[in-house]
Protein backbone atom coordinates (compact mmCIF):
# COMPACT_ATOMS: atom_id res chain seq x y z
CA UNK A 1 0.00 0.00 0.00
CA UNK A 2 1.60 3.18 -1.18
CA UNK A 3 0.68 6.45 0.39
CA UNK A 4 1.28 9.22 -2.11
CA UNK A 5 0.83 12.88 -1.27
CA UNK A 6 0.38 15.35 -4.12
CA UNK A 7 1.00 19.03 -3.39
CA UNK A 8 -1.38 21.28 -5.23
CA UNK A 9 -2.21 24.94 -5.52
CA UNK A 10 -5.18 26.95 -6.59
CA UNK A 11 -4.27 29.68 -9.07
CA UNK A 12 -6.07 32.33 -11.12
CA UNK A 13 -6.65 31.14 -14.66
CA UNK A 14 -4.25 33.36 -16.55
CA UNK A 15 -5.77 32.34 -19.85
CA UNK A 16 -9.12 33.88 -19.07
CA UNK A 17 -7.84 36.77 -17.01
CA UNK A 18 -8.65 40.14 -18.57
CA UNK A 19 -6.26 43.01 -18.91
CA UNK A 20 -7.11 46.39 -17.54
CA UNK A 21 -6.38 48.53 -20.59
CA UNK A 22 -5.73 51.63 -18.49
CA UNK A 23 -3.13 50.25 -16.14
CA UNK A 24 -1.97 47.42 -18.38
CA UNK A 25 -2.17 45.02 -15.48
CA UNK A 26 -4.21 41.91 -15.05
CA UNK A 27 -7.57 42.31 -13.45
CA UNK A 28 -7.50 39.42 -11.00
CA UNK A 29 -11.16 39.71 -10.16
CA UNK A 30 -12.04 38.57 -13.65
CA UNK A 31 -10.01 35.40 -13.33
CA UNK A 32 -11.68 32.25 -12.17
CA UNK A 33 -9.60 30.16 -9.78
CA UNK A 34 -8.49 26.79 -11.07
CA UNK A 35 -6.26 23.91 -10.05
CA UNK A 36 -2.72 24.75 -11.17
CA UNK A 37 -2.52 22.89 -14.51
CA UNK A 38 0.86 21.33 -13.66
CA UNK A 39 -0.58 19.98 -10.43
CA UNK A 40 -3.36 18.20 -12.28
CA UNK A 41 -0.60 16.11 -13.85
CA UNK A 42 0.94 15.51 -10.44
CA UNK A 43 -2.37 14.20 -9.08
CA UNK A 44 -3.02 12.16 -12.22
CA UNK A 45 0.39 10.49 -11.86
CA UNK A 46 -0.29 9.74 -8.21
CA UNK A 47 -3.62 8.16 -9.16
CA UNK A 48 -2.00 6.07 -11.88
CA UNK A 49 0.62 4.80 -9.45
CA UNK A 50 -2.12 3.96 -7.00
CA UNK A 51 -3.86 1.94 -9.69
CA UNK A 52 -0.60 0.19 -10.56
CA UNK A 53 0.61 -0.65 -7.09
CA UNK A 54 -2.36 -0.15 -4.80
CA UNK A 55 -2.53 2.58 -2.23
CA UNK A 56 -3.96 5.91 -1.26
CA UNK A 57 -3.59 9.38 -2.73
CA UNK A 58 -3.83 12.42 -0.49
CA UNK A 59 -3.63 15.98 -1.75
CA UNK A 60 -2.50 18.91 0.33
CA UNK A 61 -2.65 22.62 -0.30
CA UNK A 62 -1.99 25.84 1.52
CA UNK A 63 -4.33 28.59 0.46
CA UNK A 64 -7.46 30.62 1.16
CA UNK A 65 -10.74 28.80 1.96
CA UNK A 66 -11.96 28.67 -1.69
CA UNK A 67 -8.98 26.37 -2.40
CA UNK A 68 -11.39 23.62 -1.32
CA UNK A 69 -12.55 23.69 -4.93
CA UNK A 70 -9.08 22.82 -6.19
CA UNK A 71 -9.10 19.86 -3.81
CA UNK A 72 -12.45 18.76 -5.22
CA UNK A 73 -10.98 18.84 -8.70
CA UNK A 74 -8.28 16.46 -7.42
CA UNK A 75 -10.92 14.13 -5.98
CA UNK A 76 -12.49 14.11 -9.45
CA UNK A 77 -9.15 13.05 -10.89
CA UNK A 78 -9.10 10.20 -8.39
CA UNK A 79 -7.47 11.39 -5.16
CA UNK A 80 -8.83 9.86 -1.96
CA UNK A 81 -8.24 12.51 0.67
CA UNK A 82 -7.73 16.27 0.65
CA UNK A 83 -6.15 18.56 3.21
CA UNK A 84 -6.36 22.33 3.19
CA UNK A 85 -4.23 24.38 5.53
CA UNK A 86 -5.63 27.84 5.74
CA UNK A 87 -4.87 30.65 8.13
CA UNK A 88 -4.18 34.36 7.90
CA UNK A 89 -0.76 33.68 9.35
CA UNK A 90 0.19 31.81 6.17
CA UNK A 91 -0.50 34.84 3.98
CA UNK A 92 2.26 36.49 2.00
CA UNK A 93 4.49 33.42 1.99
CA UNK A 94 7.35 33.18 -0.48
CA UNK A 95 8.67 29.81 -1.60
CA UNK A 96 10.67 29.22 1.57
CA UNK A 97 7.73 29.94 3.88
CA UNK A 98 5.39 27.95 1.62
CA UNK A 99 7.59 24.87 1.69
CA UNK A 100 7.79 25.19 5.48
CA UNK A 101 4.02 25.31 5.98
CA UNK A 102 3.27 22.54 3.48
CA UNK A 103 5.95 20.37 5.10
CA UNK A 104 4.30 20.82 8.50
CA UNK A 105 1.01 19.67 7.00
CA UNK A 106 2.65 16.63 5.38
CA UNK A 107 4.26 15.72 8.70
CA UNK A 108 0.87 15.74 10.31
CA UNK A 109 -0.68 13.69 7.51
CA UNK A 110 2.18 11.20 7.88
CA UNK A 111 1.28 10.68 11.54
CA UNK A 112 -1.86 8.80 10.57
CA UNK A 113 -0.33 7.07 7.55
CA UNK A 114 3.37 7.12 6.68
CA UNK A 115 4.10 8.77 3.36
CA UNK A 116 6.09 6.91 0.69
CA UNK A 117 6.11 9.45 -2.09
CA UNK A 118 5.38 13.13 -2.64
CA UNK A 119 4.53 14.52 -6.05
CA UNK A 120 4.53 18.20 -7.00
CA UNK A 121 3.89 19.99 -10.25
CA UNK A 122 6.83 21.43 -12.17
CA UNK A 123 5.70 24.93 -11.22
CA UNK A 124 2.68 27.03 -10.39
CA UNK A 125 1.48 29.32 -13.17
CA UNK A 126 1.25 32.30 -10.83
CA UNK A 127 4.27 31.79 -8.56
CA UNK A 128 6.12 30.38 -11.51
CA UNK A 129 9.29 29.38 -9.68
CA UNK A 130 9.41 25.60 -9.33
CA UNK A 131 11.13 26.11 -5.99
CA UNK A 132 8.51 24.83 -3.59
CA UNK A 133 8.88 21.13 -4.50
CA UNK A 134 12.63 20.83 -3.86
CA UNK A 135 12.12 22.98 -0.77
CA UNK A 136 9.66 20.50 0.71
CA UNK A 137 12.04 17.63 -0.07
CA UNK A 138 14.91 19.33 1.73
CA UNK A 139 12.80 20.08 4.77
CA UNK A 140 11.72 16.45 5.00
CA UNK A 141 15.27 15.40 4.19
CA UNK A 142 14.26 13.18 1.30
CA UNK A 143 15.75 13.26 -2.22
CA UNK A 144 14.16 15.75 -4.62
CA UNK A 145 13.81 14.56 -8.20
CA UNK A 146 12.81 17.39 -10.52
CA UNK A 147 11.83 17.27 -14.22
CA UNK A 148 10.36 13.78 -13.89
CA UNK A 149 8.59 12.73 -17.07
CA UNK A 150 8.19 9.01 -16.53
CA UNK A 151 7.95 6.72 -13.53
CA UNK A 152 9.47 3.41 -14.47
CA UNK A 153 9.09 1.55 -11.22
CA UNK A 154 8.17 1.97 -7.59
CA UNK A 155 9.34 -0.85 -5.37
CA UNK A 156 7.97 -0.41 -1.93
CA UNK A 157 9.42 -3.61 -0.43
CA UNK A 158 12.92 -2.76 -1.45
CA UNK A 159 12.34 0.93 -0.96
CA UNK A 160 13.29 2.48 -4.26
CA UNK A 161 11.86 4.34 -7.24
CA UNK A 162 13.21 4.53 -10.79
CA UNK A 163 12.25 7.53 -12.90
CA UNK A 164 13.21 9.38 -16.05
CA UNK A 165 14.34 12.95 -15.55
CA UNK A 166 14.08 15.16 -18.59
CA UNK A 167 17.33 16.69 -19.79
CA UNK A 168 17.77 19.29 -22.49
CA UNK A 169 18.74 16.68 -25.07
CA UNK A 170 17.24 13.50 -23.76
CA UNK A 171 16.68 12.04 -20.33
CA UNK A 172 18.44 10.29 -17.48
CA UNK A 173 17.26 7.23 -15.64
CA UNK A 174 17.62 7.74 -11.91
CA UNK A 175 17.13 5.39 -9.03
CA UNK A 176 16.26 6.91 -5.69
CA UNK A 177 15.51 5.55 -2.28
CA UNK A 178 11.98 5.95 -0.93
CA UNK A 179 10.51 8.15 0.36
CA UNK A 180 11.37 10.83 -2.18
CA UNK A 181 9.75 13.74 -3.97
CA UNK A 182 9.04 14.15 -7.68
CA UNK A 183 8.35 17.41 -9.51
CA UNK A 184 6.65 16.29 -12.69
CA UNK A 185 6.60 17.66 -16.21
CA UNK A 186 3.32 18.17 -18.05
CA UNK A 187 4.38 15.55 -20.56
CA UNK A 188 4.32 12.79 -17.95
CA UNK A 189 0.67 11.98 -18.63
CA UNK A 190 -2.60 13.22 -19.99
CA UNK A 191 -5.37 14.03 -17.61
CA UNK A 192 -8.53 12.41 -18.98
CA UNK A 193 -12.08 13.53 -18.29
CA UNK A 194 -13.12 12.35 -14.85
CA UNK A 195 -15.40 9.36 -14.54
CA UNK A 196 -18.86 10.06 -13.19
CA UNK A 197 -18.44 8.26 -9.84
CA UNK A 198 -15.46 10.48 -9.06
CA UNK A 199 -17.51 13.57 -9.89
CA UNK A 200 -20.24 12.47 -7.55
CA UNK A 201 -17.72 11.70 -4.82
CA UNK A 202 -16.06 15.08 -5.31
CA UNK A 203 -19.36 16.94 -5.08
CA UNK A 204 -19.98 15.44 -1.67
CA UNK A 205 -16.41 15.45 -0.44
CA UNK A 206 -15.44 17.52 2.58
CA UNK A 207 -11.70 18.09 2.88
CA UNK A 208 -9.83 18.20 6.18
CA UNK A 209 -9.29 21.85 7.04
CA UNK A 210 -6.50 22.83 9.39
CA UNK A 211 -5.34 26.13 10.79
CA UNK A 212 -1.86 26.83 12.16
CA UNK A 213 -3.05 25.67 15.59
CA UNK A 214 -3.94 22.24 14.23
CA UNK A 215 -0.36 21.67 13.09
CA UNK A 216 2.36 20.56 15.43
CA UNK A 217 5.71 22.07 16.30
CA UNK A 218 5.19 25.12 14.15
CA UNK A 219 7.58 28.01 14.49
CA UNK A 220 5.28 30.95 13.77
CA UNK A 221 8.24 33.10 12.76
CA UNK A 222 8.80 30.89 9.73
CA UNK A 223 5.29 31.38 8.36
CA UNK A 224 3.80 33.80 5.87
CA UNK A 225 5.24 37.20 5.21
CA UNK A 226 7.36 37.11 8.38
CA UNK A 227 8.98 33.86 7.38
CA UNK A 228 9.74 35.00 3.86
CA UNK A 229 13.29 36.17 3.19
CA UNK A 230 12.37 37.60 -0.19
CA UNK A 231 10.26 40.70 -0.44
CA UNK A 232 8.89 42.52 -3.44
CA UNK A 233 10.37 45.95 -3.04
CA UNK A 234 8.85 47.64 -6.01
CA UNK A 235 6.75 46.90 -8.98
CA UNK A 236 7.44 48.93 -12.06
CA UNK A 237 6.54 49.14 -15.69
CA UNK A 238 9.52 48.22 -17.79
CA UNK A 239 10.91 51.25 -19.56
CA UNK A 240 9.26 51.46 -22.89
CA UNK A 241 11.49 51.75 -25.88
CA UNK A 242 10.64 54.62 -28.18
CA UNK A 243 8.33 52.24 -29.96
CA UNK A 244 8.24 51.10 -33.51
CA UNK A 245 7.99 53.12 -36.66
CA UNK A 246 4.71 52.54 -38.42
CA UNK A 247 4.74 52.22 -42.17
CA UNK A 248 2.17 54.17 -44.12
CA UNK A 249 0.00 53.68 -47.14
CA UNK A 250 -1.96 50.73 -48.42
CA UNK A 251 -1.15 47.27 -47.08
CA UNK A 252 0.80 46.55 -50.23
CA UNK A 253 2.83 49.75 -49.87
CA UNK A 254 3.49 49.02 -46.23
CA UNK A 255 4.79 45.57 -47.07
CA UNK A 256 7.05 47.05 -49.72
CA UNK A 257 8.60 49.41 -47.19
CA UNK A 258 8.98 46.58 -44.74
CA UNK A 259 10.67 44.48 -47.34
CA UNK A 260 13.23 47.13 -48.12
CA UNK A 261 14.12 47.31 -44.41
CA UNK A 262 14.35 43.56 -44.04
CA UNK A 263 16.35 43.08 -47.22
CA UNK A 264 19.07 45.28 -45.80
CA UNK A 265 19.94 42.10 -43.98
CA UNK A 266 20.07 40.30 -47.28
CA UNK A 267 22.99 38.11 -46.27
CA UNK A 268 20.67 36.22 -43.94
CA UNK A 269 18.49 35.12 -46.78
CA UNK A 270 21.17 34.42 -49.35
CA UNK A 271 22.85 31.83 -47.20
CA UNK A 272 19.55 30.08 -46.77
CA UNK A 273 18.69 30.46 -50.45
CA UNK A 274 21.84 28.64 -51.59
CA UNK A 275 21.15 25.54 -49.58
Amino acid at each position, binding site marked *: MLHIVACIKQVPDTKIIKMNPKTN*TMDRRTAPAILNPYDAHAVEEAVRLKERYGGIVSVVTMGPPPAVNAIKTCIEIGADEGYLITDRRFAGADTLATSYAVTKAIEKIAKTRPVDLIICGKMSIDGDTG*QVGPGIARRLDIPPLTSVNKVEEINQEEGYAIVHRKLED*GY*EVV*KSSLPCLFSVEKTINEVPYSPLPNMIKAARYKPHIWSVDDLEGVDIKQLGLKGS*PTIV*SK*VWAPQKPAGGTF*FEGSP*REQVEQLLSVVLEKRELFEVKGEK
Partner: protein
Amino acid sequence: MDFQDYQGVWVFIEKKDEAVASVSLELLGAGRKLADKRGVELAGILIGENVKHLTKTVFEYGADKVYVYDQPIFKHYRTESFMRALLDCTEKYKPEIILFGATSTGKDLASAVATDMPTGLTADTTELDVEEETGLLLASRPAFGGNIMATILCKKYRPQMATVRSKVMKALPPQPGRTGNIVEETISLKEEDIRTKVLEIVRETVKKVRIDEADIIVAGGKGLGSFEGFQLIHQLAETVGGAVGASRDVVEAGWIEHAHQVGQTGVTVTPKIYFAIGISGAIQHIVGMKNSGLIIAINKDKEAPIFQNCHYGIVGDAFEIVPILIEQFKNALSKEKVR
Protein backbone atom coordinates in the same frame (compact mmCIF):
# COMPACT_ATOMS: atom_id res chain seq x y z
CA MET B 1 24.26 37.07 11.15
CA ASP B 2 27.04 39.53 10.55
CA PHE B 3 26.74 40.82 7.01
CA GLN B 4 30.36 42.06 7.06
CA ASP B 5 31.48 38.44 6.89
CA TYR B 6 29.79 37.90 3.55
CA GLN B 7 31.76 39.10 0.58
CA GLY B 8 32.10 38.48 -3.11
CA VAL B 9 29.93 37.42 -5.99
CA TRP B 10 29.78 33.78 -7.04
CA VAL B 11 28.56 32.12 -10.18
CA PHE B 12 27.68 28.44 -10.24
CA ILE B 13 29.49 27.08 -13.29
CA GLU B 14 27.36 24.64 -15.21
CA LYS B 15 28.81 22.20 -17.70
CA LYS B 16 27.36 21.41 -21.08
CA ASP B 17 28.90 18.91 -23.48
CA GLU B 18 32.20 18.98 -21.59
CA ALA B 19 32.44 22.79 -21.87
CA VAL B 20 31.23 25.67 -19.75
CA ALA B 21 27.53 26.26 -20.49
CA SER B 22 26.84 29.55 -22.23
CA VAL B 23 24.51 30.67 -19.46
CA SER B 24 27.43 30.48 -17.01
CA LEU B 25 29.53 32.67 -19.28
CA GLU B 26 26.69 35.18 -19.41
CA LEU B 27 26.45 35.13 -15.63
CA LEU B 28 30.17 35.75 -15.32
CA GLY B 29 29.59 38.87 -17.41
CA ALA B 30 26.70 39.99 -15.23
CA GLY B 31 28.53 38.98 -12.04
CA ARG B 32 31.61 40.96 -13.08
CA LYS B 33 29.52 44.14 -13.14
CA LEU B 34 28.08 43.48 -9.72
CA ALA B 35 31.48 42.63 -8.26
CA ASP B 36 33.10 45.74 -9.71
CA LYS B 37 30.34 47.96 -8.40
CA ARG B 38 30.86 46.49 -4.94
CA GLY B 39 34.64 46.39 -5.28
CA VAL B 40 34.79 42.67 -4.52
CA GLU B 41 35.96 39.46 -6.14
CA LEU B 42 34.06 37.45 -8.71
CA ALA B 43 34.37 33.72 -8.21
CA GLY B 44 33.15 30.70 -10.10
CA ILE B 45 32.19 27.51 -8.32
CA LEU B 46 32.89 24.45 -10.37
CA ILE B 47 31.79 20.97 -9.35
CA GLY B 48 32.32 17.78 -11.33
CA GLU B 49 34.70 15.04 -12.32
CA ASN B 50 37.73 15.99 -14.45
CA VAL B 51 36.58 19.59 -14.68
CA LYS B 52 39.68 21.45 -13.61
CA HIS B 53 40.64 22.36 -17.17
CA LEU B 54 37.43 24.41 -17.41
CA THR B 55 38.81 26.98 -14.97
CA LYS B 56 40.76 28.49 -17.86
CA THR B 57 37.52 29.49 -19.59
CA VAL B 58 36.03 30.76 -16.35
CA PHE B 59 38.99 33.13 -15.85
CA GLU B 60 38.93 34.28 -19.46
CA TYR B 61 35.31 35.28 -19.06
CA GLY B 62 35.92 37.42 -16.01
CA ALA B 63 36.34 35.42 -12.79
CA ASP B 64 39.10 36.26 -10.31
CA LYS B 65 38.87 32.96 -8.50
CA VAL B 66 37.43 29.50 -9.00
CA TYR B 67 36.50 27.09 -6.24
CA VAL B 68 36.86 23.59 -7.66
CA TYR B 69 35.43 20.33 -6.39
CA ASP B 70 36.83 17.67 -8.68
CA GLN B 71 35.90 14.21 -7.40
CA PRO B 72 34.41 11.04 -8.93
CA ILE B 73 31.31 11.42 -6.78
CA PHE B 74 30.42 14.48 -8.88
CA LYS B 75 30.52 12.62 -12.20
CA HIS B 76 26.80 13.15 -12.74
CA TYR B 77 24.78 16.04 -11.48
CA ARG B 78 22.85 14.95 -8.42
CA THR B 79 21.08 17.36 -6.12
CA GLU B 80 22.37 15.81 -2.93
CA SER B 81 26.06 15.65 -3.78
CA PHE B 82 26.27 19.03 -5.49
CA MET B 83 24.28 20.60 -2.70
CA ARG B 84 26.72 19.29 -0.09
CA ALA B 85 29.66 20.82 -1.93
CA LEU B 86 27.97 24.14 -2.38
CA LEU B 87 26.76 24.34 1.22
CA ASP B 88 30.21 23.43 2.40
CA CYS B 89 31.92 26.04 0.29
CA THR B 90 29.43 28.75 1.20
CA GLU B 91 29.81 28.09 4.87
CA LYS B 92 33.57 28.31 4.56
CA TYR B 93 33.96 31.34 2.29
CA LYS B 94 30.70 33.22 2.78
CA PRO B 95 29.78 34.93 -0.49
CA GLU B 96 27.41 37.86 -0.53
CA ILE B 97 25.66 36.82 -3.75
CA ILE B 98 25.35 33.54 -5.66
CA LEU B 99 23.98 33.39 -9.20
CA PHE B 100 22.74 30.28 -10.99
CA GLY B 101 21.49 29.80 -14.54
CA ALA B 102 17.73 29.28 -14.56
CA THR B 103 18.26 25.90 -16.22
CA SER B 104 16.79 22.71 -14.87
CA THR B 105 20.03 21.93 -13.05
CA GLY B 106 20.54 25.48 -11.79
CA LYS B 107 16.99 25.73 -10.49
CA ASP B 108 17.10 22.31 -8.90
CA LEU B 109 20.34 23.02 -7.08
CA ALA B 110 19.49 26.58 -6.05
CA SER B 111 16.09 25.59 -4.63
CA ALA B 112 17.62 22.87 -2.49
CA VAL B 113 20.54 24.95 -1.28
CA ALA B 114 18.39 27.98 -0.42
CA THR B 115 16.15 25.84 1.77
CA ASP B 116 19.04 24.44 3.76
CA MET B 117 20.83 27.72 4.33
CA PRO B 118 18.13 29.11 4.65
CA THR B 119 18.00 32.20 2.48
CA GLY B 120 15.89 33.92 -0.14
CA LEU B 121 15.99 32.83 -3.76
CA THR B 122 14.60 34.83 -6.65
CA ALA B 123 13.60 32.76 -9.66
CA ASP B 124 14.03 33.50 -13.35
CA THR B 125 15.58 36.90 -12.94
CA THR B 126 15.91 39.00 -16.07
CA GLU B 127 17.61 42.09 -14.61
CA LEU B 128 20.30 42.33 -11.97
CA ASP B 129 21.82 45.17 -10.04
CA VAL B 130 23.40 45.72 -6.66
CA GLU B 131 23.34 48.59 -4.19
CA GLU B 132 26.88 49.83 -4.02
CA GLU B 133 26.78 50.70 -0.33
CA THR B 134 24.81 47.84 1.18
CA GLY B 135 25.46 45.03 -1.27
CA LEU B 136 21.74 44.44 -1.54
CA LEU B 137 20.99 42.46 -4.67
CA LEU B 138 18.23 43.91 -6.84
CA ALA B 139 16.84 40.98 -8.78
CA SER B 140 14.00 41.82 -11.13
CA ARG B 141 11.65 39.59 -13.04
CA PRO B 142 8.34 39.87 -14.82
CA ALA B 143 5.61 39.50 -12.28
CA PHE B 144 2.25 37.96 -12.33
CA GLY B 145 -0.13 40.85 -12.56
CA GLY B 146 0.44 41.78 -16.14
CA ASN B 147 2.87 44.03 -17.84
CA ILE B 148 4.96 44.77 -14.84
CA MET B 149 8.35 43.94 -13.46
CA ALA B 150 9.00 43.32 -9.79
CA THR B 151 12.27 43.91 -7.99
CA ILE B 152 12.85 41.30 -5.33
CA LEU B 153 15.11 41.80 -2.36
CA CYS B 154 16.47 39.61 0.38
CA LYS B 155 17.31 42.03 3.15
CA LYS B 156 17.81 39.88 6.20
CA TYR B 157 19.73 36.86 4.97
CA ARG B 158 23.06 36.18 3.32
CA PRO B 159 24.06 34.98 0.83
CA GLN B 160 21.50 36.37 -1.56
CA MET B 161 20.63 34.01 -4.37
CA ALA B 162 19.01 34.24 -7.78
CA THR B 163 18.50 32.07 -10.81
CA VAL B 164 18.90 34.03 -14.03
CA ARG B 165 17.40 33.34 -17.42
CA SER B 166 19.79 32.35 -20.16
CA LYS B 167 20.38 34.71 -23.06
CA VAL B 168 19.35 37.84 -21.17
CA MET B 169 22.75 38.75 -19.70
CA LYS B 170 25.78 39.37 -21.88
CA ALA B 171 29.04 37.47 -21.63
CA LEU B 172 32.18 39.62 -21.76
CA PRO B 173 34.51 39.14 -24.67
CA PRO B 174 36.98 36.48 -23.47
CA GLN B 175 40.49 37.68 -22.62
CA PRO B 176 42.89 34.95 -23.65
CA GLY B 177 45.57 34.36 -21.05
CA ARG B 178 43.63 36.00 -18.23
CA THR B 179 44.10 33.88 -15.12
CA GLY B 180 43.21 33.83 -11.47
CA ASN B 181 43.28 31.95 -8.28
CA ILE B 182 42.24 28.28 -8.16
CA VAL B 183 41.03 27.07 -4.79
CA GLU B 184 40.80 23.31 -4.71
CA GLU B 185 38.34 21.85 -2.27
CA THR B 186 37.28 18.33 -1.45
CA ILE B 187 34.53 16.93 0.68
CA SER B 188 34.37 13.55 2.28
CA LEU B 189 31.24 12.16 0.80
CA LYS B 190 30.79 8.47 0.20
CA GLU B 191 28.68 6.97 -2.52
CA GLU B 192 26.53 5.32 0.17
CA ASP B 193 25.68 8.75 1.56
CA ILE B 194 23.90 9.69 -1.65
CA ARG B 195 20.40 8.37 -1.97
CA THR B 196 20.08 8.68 -5.73
CA LYS B 197 21.98 7.02 -8.55
CA VAL B 198 22.08 7.89 -12.22
CA LEU B 199 21.63 4.55 -13.97
CA GLU B 200 21.73 5.72 -17.54
CA ILE B 201 21.80 8.84 -19.68
CA VAL B 202 19.90 8.70 -22.92
CA ARG B 203 20.64 11.31 -25.57
CA GLU B 204 17.79 11.60 -27.95
CA THR B 205 19.03 11.51 -31.50
CA VAL B 206 16.10 13.31 -33.04
CA LYS B 207 17.29 16.87 -33.27
CA LYS B 208 14.97 18.95 -31.14
CA VAL B 209 13.85 22.29 -32.43
CA ARG B 210 16.28 24.89 -31.18
CA ILE B 211 14.71 28.22 -31.93
CA ASP B 212 17.31 29.96 -29.79
CA GLU B 213 19.88 29.33 -32.49
CA ALA B 214 17.89 30.73 -35.41
CA ASP B 215 18.84 33.94 -37.21
CA ILE B 216 15.29 34.60 -38.25
CA ILE B 217 12.19 33.79 -36.23
CA VAL B 218 8.64 34.15 -37.40
CA ALA B 219 6.48 34.07 -34.30
CA GLY B 220 2.71 33.93 -34.23
CA GLY B 221 0.18 34.60 -31.50
CA LYS B 222 -3.41 33.99 -30.60
CA GLY B 223 -4.36 36.56 -33.22
CA LEU B 224 -3.99 33.86 -35.89
CA GLY B 225 -7.28 32.54 -34.59
CA SER B 226 -6.88 28.80 -35.04
CA PHE B 227 -4.54 25.94 -35.80
CA GLU B 228 -5.36 26.41 -39.48
CA GLY B 229 -4.75 30.15 -39.28
CA PHE B 230 -1.39 29.51 -37.62
CA GLN B 231 -0.20 27.66 -40.72
CA LEU B 232 0.33 31.11 -42.24
CA ILE B 233 3.22 31.52 -39.81
CA HIS B 234 4.79 28.28 -41.05
CA GLN B 235 4.43 29.49 -44.63
CA LEU B 236 6.17 32.79 -43.96
CA ALA B 237 8.89 31.03 -41.97
CA GLU B 238 9.51 28.70 -44.83
CA THR B 239 9.67 31.56 -47.32
CA VAL B 240 12.24 33.51 -45.33
CA GLY B 241 14.10 30.45 -44.10
CA GLY B 242 13.30 31.11 -40.46
CA ALA B 243 12.24 29.14 -37.41
CA VAL B 244 8.71 29.27 -36.04
CA GLY B 245 8.09 30.88 -32.66
CA ALA B 246 4.89 31.21 -30.68
CA SER B 247 3.33 32.90 -27.67
CA ARG B 248 2.32 30.84 -24.69
CA ASP B 249 -1.37 31.11 -25.52
CA VAL B 250 -0.69 29.45 -28.85
CA VAL B 251 1.18 26.62 -27.16
CA GLU B 252 -1.58 26.18 -24.60
CA ALA B 253 -4.11 26.06 -27.42
CA GLY B 254 -2.11 23.18 -28.84
CA TRP B 255 -1.28 24.78 -32.20
CA ILE B 256 2.42 24.04 -31.74
CA GLU B 257 4.71 22.35 -29.23
CA HIS B 258 6.26 24.03 -26.22
CA ALA B 259 9.76 23.99 -27.73
CA HIS B 260 8.59 26.87 -29.94
CA GLN B 261 7.39 29.07 -27.09
CA VAL B 262 9.20 32.36 -26.69
CA GLY B 263 9.23 34.13 -23.34
CA GLN B 264 9.44 33.87 -19.61
CA THR B 265 8.32 30.26 -19.46
CA GLY B 266 9.62 29.39 -22.88
CA VAL B 267 12.86 30.12 -24.67
CA THR B 268 14.77 33.40 -24.72
CA VAL B 269 15.80 34.22 -28.26
CA THR B 270 18.07 36.77 -29.91
CA PRO B 271 17.68 36.32 -33.66
CA LYS B 272 18.74 38.95 -36.15
CA ILE B 273 15.13 39.35 -37.27
CA TYR B 274 12.03 38.63 -35.21
CA PHE B 275 8.55 38.80 -36.68
CA ALA B 276 5.76 39.06 -34.09
CA ILE B 277 2.48 38.43 -35.82
CA GLY B 278 -0.83 38.54 -33.95
CA ILE B 279 1.03 38.72 -30.65
CA SER B 280 -0.15 41.31 -28.16
CA GLY B 281 3.23 41.75 -26.49
CA ALA B 282 2.72 40.80 -22.84
CA ILE B 283 5.77 41.35 -20.67
CA GLN B 284 6.30 37.61 -20.32
CA HIS B 285 6.65 37.40 -24.08
CA ILE B 286 8.73 40.56 -24.45
CA VAL B 287 11.45 39.44 -22.02
CA GLY B 288 12.05 36.46 -24.25
CA MET B 289 12.67 38.38 -27.47
CA LYS B 290 13.47 42.00 -26.75
CA ASN B 291 17.16 41.64 -27.53
CA SER B 292 16.49 40.58 -31.10
CA GLY B 293 18.28 42.57 -33.78
CA LEU B 294 15.29 43.76 -35.75
CA ILE B 295 11.77 43.35 -34.41
CA ILE B 296 8.84 43.62 -36.77
CA ALA B 297 5.30 43.56 -35.44
CA ILE B 298 2.11 42.94 -37.33
CA ASN B 299 -1.07 43.40 -35.34
CA LYS B 300 -4.49 44.72 -36.11
CA ASP B 301 -4.74 46.64 -32.87
CA LYS B 302 -2.82 49.89 -33.05
CA GLU B 303 -2.67 50.03 -29.24
CA ALA B 304 -1.14 46.56 -28.80
CA PRO B 305 1.90 46.77 -26.46
CA ILE B 306 4.00 44.89 -28.99
CA PHE B 307 4.27 48.13 -30.97
CA GLN B 308 6.13 49.68 -28.03
CA ASN B 309 8.68 46.92 -28.27
CA CYS B 310 9.41 46.70 -31.95
CA HIS B 311 11.46 48.56 -34.51
CA TYR B 312 8.86 48.55 -37.27
CA GLY B 313 5.19 47.90 -37.15
CA ILE B 314 2.33 47.32 -39.50
CA VAL B 315 -1.17 47.83 -38.21
CA GLY B 316 -3.35 45.43 -40.10
CA ASP B 317 -4.94 42.05 -40.43
CA ALA B 318 -2.37 39.27 -40.54
CA PHE B 319 -4.46 37.39 -43.06
CA GLU B 320 -4.21 40.33 -45.43
CA ILE B 321 -0.63 41.44 -44.75
CA VAL B 322 1.22 38.14 -44.47
CA PRO B 323 0.16 36.68 -47.84
CA ILE B 324 1.36 39.89 -49.52
CA LEU B 325 4.58 39.64 -47.57
CA ILE B 326 5.11 36.04 -48.66
CA GLU B 327 4.43 36.93 -52.26
CA GLN B 328 6.75 39.94 -52.30
CA PHE B 329 9.43 38.05 -50.48
CA LYS B 330 9.37 35.24 -52.96
CA ASN B 331 9.67 37.78 -55.76
CA ALA B 332 12.55 39.58 -54.14
CA LEU B 333 14.45 36.42 -53.30
CA SER B 334 14.02 34.90 -56.74
CA LYS B 335 15.31 38.12 -58.32
CA GLU B 336 18.35 37.79 -56.11
CA LYS B 337 19.06 34.39 -57.50
CA VAL B 338 18.68 35.42 -61.11
CA ARG B 339 21.25 38.16 -60.73
